């Protein structure tokens, strides 16, 4: 059922829009191509911002700084009863979607489907969006350089999301493990 909704959503939305347009006598082909012209412009506009964010984040990862940051946080993680294996995920989650999914796949295949860590990691990944990437691309596309509180908001929401994931998962999944 859920699969059906996600696969049917796009074709259905497209059909609905086109049908309404035809009924209202909108020249759909001309309007489509007129709108589509901007596709290239927008994609090219975001390249500089993508390069800045992706290069700096991958440097951070490759230098081993990310690893050391994980190690430094390990004690704190034990204190709040968070499985240590989710740590790279917590750090990477706001930085890069691809990396977060990579870490998650790694956790999932390493610990197997029944582990609590896998479920917790799944909820963490599923409930988040990569703050840095979104900000860089969206602001970059229109040339905004002063983000004001947008970044702080995104990071605070991410932290709240992680805390919520821990609480909710322990309520949902922990009793059933025993």
């Amino acid at each position, binding site marked *: 059922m859920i699969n059906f909704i996600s696969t049917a959503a796009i074709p259905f939305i497209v059909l609905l829009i086109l049908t309404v347009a035809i009924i209202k006598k909108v020249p759909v082909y001309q309007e489509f191509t007129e*709108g589509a012209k901007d596709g290239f412009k927008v994609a090219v506009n975001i390249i500089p911002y993508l390069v800045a964010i992706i290069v700096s984040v991958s440097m951070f990862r490759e230098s081993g700084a990310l690893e050391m940051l994980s190690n430094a946080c390990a004690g704190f993680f034990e204190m709040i009863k968070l499985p240590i294996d989710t740590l790279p995920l917590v750090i990477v989650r706001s930085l890069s979607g691809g990396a977060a999914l990579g870490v998650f796949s790694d956790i999932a295949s390493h610990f197997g489907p029944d582990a609590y860590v896998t479920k917790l990691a799944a909820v963490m990944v599923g409930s988040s969006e990569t703050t840095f990437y979104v900000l860089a691309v969206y602001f970059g596309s229109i040339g905004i350089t002063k983000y004001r509180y947008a970044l702080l908001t995104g990071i605070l929401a991410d932290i709240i999301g992680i805390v919520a994931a821990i609480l909710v998962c322990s309520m949902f999944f922990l009793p059933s493990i025993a």
Partner: protein
Amino acid sequence: MNYIFYFLIAISIIFAVINGRLENLGNAILKGADLSVKIAFSLIGIMAFWLGIVRIAEKCGIVKFIAKLITPITKWLFNEIPQDNEAIGNIALSFSANALGLTNAATPIGLKVMEELQEENKDKKTASNAMCMFLAMNTAGFQIIPATVIAVLAGIGYKNPTEIIVPTLIVTSIAFLSAIIIAKLLQKVWKPQTVEKEVKGVNYD
């Protein structure tokens, strides 16, 4: 952002020296730059498609119709944007696409929203309240069905991957609502002309 960019790179180089991984850095730059262009180029086609569809939706009044439906909410969230602006309808479209997990559709529409918000913006270099609110909603990543995660779980033989939907929905809603509240609170404190650097620097670490 200037400080974050600087610190990410400076820290990386210092740590690369400590860890003896300097040669990895050059590689990281090369790969990162390459990946950025690949991402941007892979966006062109799908971007063109959705921008075309959205334009049709605008011309036939669907965007206006959706906008009218959600005006009570957007009046409060985006009180600086005229409610008959095309942006309001597109915000709703982009949000629905995100919620359904249609990232490919959400990004082009979202970028269009940013352009429309920029027209209302007085200082073209500084984010407006409306932009920050829109991005707060976006970065919180509200999603009804986490399709990718479910796919990965199913891939490793998880018997009932859909059981993560409800907890994910609860968590994502909490994060989403907090993001909106935080953005609303901060917009009163963090006015456009104030210096932002210090707070961001602290916050990053």
